[in-house]
């Protein structure tokens, strides 16, 4: 789908924000492409919500520049920014019905009554709430409120849409459904979207790109699949997906663990202590101890198996006492040769799935 004419790129440069003596954002630079769905992902306190608030104009930065298209907006008051926002608690106006909530931004812009009615109707259609215009806000379910908030944020065709954990108040099933719906709505309308969440699965499901934030900085900005396959820091590896960390030694361009050479697809770092990131689903239970070349083998003892219906999780202990998790699907061939807890096992890891990150402390 083509990019809507209203979609504009955002360019944030050297954003600084301190609350008292606490630095919340430090020299932050971020570019969002026109029509892109970009997610700010991070734990609470990472500065992601503060950044969104600065973008919306509710929080004043200490320094920095925000350009939307060619316009500098860092000092523009929020009501002149023309940015739609979906709030975490929806922030619907309780004294207005659904129609008036959605018509509110149009009313502020002096849109004529007939056109307002038409555009509100279209927005209600878009979020699948046809015919609910006369409902009071307190007569709506959580999912419906969410849709009203969304309709209100897009009805005036803003250049940019911001979303602050909009799905966090919904239950799991509805949340997953809304993720898909938001995604397809974005594809259809093509507005530049900045989405904030602490839920890595949600971020991976919905985003074109994810900016992983930690301690007021962006640790890594990449497509979801790149982020998952090649995390660049220990934090990113730990925050996105599950990870086992195994300390390894590097010298002269080769990687060693317990006296065994580790094969990696990427060139090994020069020297020093590093961490090997092992994703639970990339590990395999090996039938025999001598696998094909290019596969790293880890010897361990199986300590427990958790059956989860479609899949199972093995907990194994390496020879140095380190815990390791393995996840695989319950295929009959795997189940047939499943060892019993207490037995020694060999775990295989392909060279291209072997990721190294710096061991920062």
């Amino acid at each position, binding site marked *: 789908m083509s990019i809507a004419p209203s979609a504009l790129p955002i360019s944030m440069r050297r954003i600084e924000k301190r609350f008292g003596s606490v630095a919340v954002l430090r020299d932050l630079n971020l570019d969002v492409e026109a029509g892109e769905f970009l997610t700010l992902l991070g734990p609470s306190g990472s500065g992601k919500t503060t950044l969104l608030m600065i973008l919306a104009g509710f929080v004043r930065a200490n320094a920095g520049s925000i350009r939307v298209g060619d316009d500098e907006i860092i000092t523009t*008051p929020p*009501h002149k920014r023309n940015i739609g926002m979906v709030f975490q608690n929806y922030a619907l106006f309780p*004294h207005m019905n659904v129609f008036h909530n959605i018509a509110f*931004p149009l009313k502020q812009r002096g849109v004529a009554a007939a056109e307002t009615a038409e555009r509100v109707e279209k927005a209600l259609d878009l979020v699948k709430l046809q015919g609910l215009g006369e409902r009071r806000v307190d007569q709506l379910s959580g999912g419906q409120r969410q849709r009203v908030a969304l309709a209100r944020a897009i009805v005036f065709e803003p250049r940019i849409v911001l979303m602050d954990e909009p799905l966090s108040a919904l239950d799991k099933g509805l949340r997953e459904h809304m993720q898909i719906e938001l995604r397809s709505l974005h594809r259809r309308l093509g507005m530049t979207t900045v989405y904030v969440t602490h839920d890595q699965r949600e971020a991976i499901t919905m985003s074109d790109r994810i900016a992983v934030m930690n301690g007021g900085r962006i640790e890594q900005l990449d497509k979801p699949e790149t982020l998952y396959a090649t995390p660049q820091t220990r934090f990113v590896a730990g925050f996105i997906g599950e990870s086992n960390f195994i300390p390894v030694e590097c010298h002269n361009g080769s990687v060693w663990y317990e006296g065994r050479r580790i094969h990696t697809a990427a060139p090994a770092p020069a020297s020093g202590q590093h961490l090997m990131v092992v994703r639970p689903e990339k590990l395999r239970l090996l039938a025999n101890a001598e696998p094909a070349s290019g596969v790293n083998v880890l010897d361990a003892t199986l300590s427990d198996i958790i059956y989860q219906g479609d899949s199972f999780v093995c907990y194994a202990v390496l020879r140095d006492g380190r815990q390791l998790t393995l996840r695989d699907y319950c295929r009959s061939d795997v189940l047939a040769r499943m060892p019993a807890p207490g037995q020694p096992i060999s775990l295989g890891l392909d060279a291209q799935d072997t990721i190294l990150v710096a061991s920062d402390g």
Partner: protein
Amino acid sequence: MSAQSAFHESAGTNLNAQSLRADARRESLRLLALLAPSLFLVFAITIVPIGWLFWLSLFDEAGAFSAANYARFFEQASYIKTFVTTFKVAFIVTGACVLLGYPLAYMLSQLTRRAASICLIFVILPFWTSVLVRTYAWLVILQRKGLINSWLIDLGVISQPLSLANNLSGVVIGMTHILLPFLVLPLYASMKTIDTDCLRAGMNLGAGPAATFRQIFFPLSLPGLASGVVIVFVLCLGFFVTPALMGGGKVIMWAMRMEQTTSLYSNWGAGAALGVVLLVVTLALLGLFQWLLGARATGVWSSR
């Protein structure tokens, strides 16, 4: 085994229905027994005196059963005048409290928690001082040779002292000061519950600060304002000390008329009738407010 299943089956769909009903009955009786002491207290100190008051109002001075005490309201001009004065004062004082209290409560609601609690102390502090003391203080400030008049004359603003006390304006100033916290406190509490995100959403959607206040903050603060207004208005209707001291005998309100009737003329029947009428009017007003607010809450606002 078979005996047991026979018992289950004989009960059919109404399995244990009877004993469950009996159990529910026993529980409500037990709860009633727990409530009994307080119900007795309410009955003894509220229902009985009000009933007695009503009973008293039905007898004239000679002790004969008559409606003369109520007929007097329509016959004597002074009663009607008192009634009008009472409502006039109540309206003016309530209006003044709204004009002063709304901006104050709004300011308090926008301050940081710490600053707001310090400022609230200044709202509540006079609240803890005796009404009598505060009324005399106002008398000192407002009288002919009081603080305000002597300042204004010294500054050359006026040549003749303003008559601020011993008339309606004195009553209004004194009562407004005393009743202001009753408006500010509920209003402040309700303003605090207004979601900041709603105001942010208003701004975000294109409403400037003034438009956001008018279209979002103000309508959302109306329930709190209404409860403050009701409290102040009802308290005004029965106010005694301040109008008695600050009115200089020129402003006769309902409660003062009651006091006169009972202690000066010892006409308990007439005094009781005054009380009954005040009670009925107050309840009617509360009912009216309730009805208006109820209608608003069910969406009159949104259909506008």
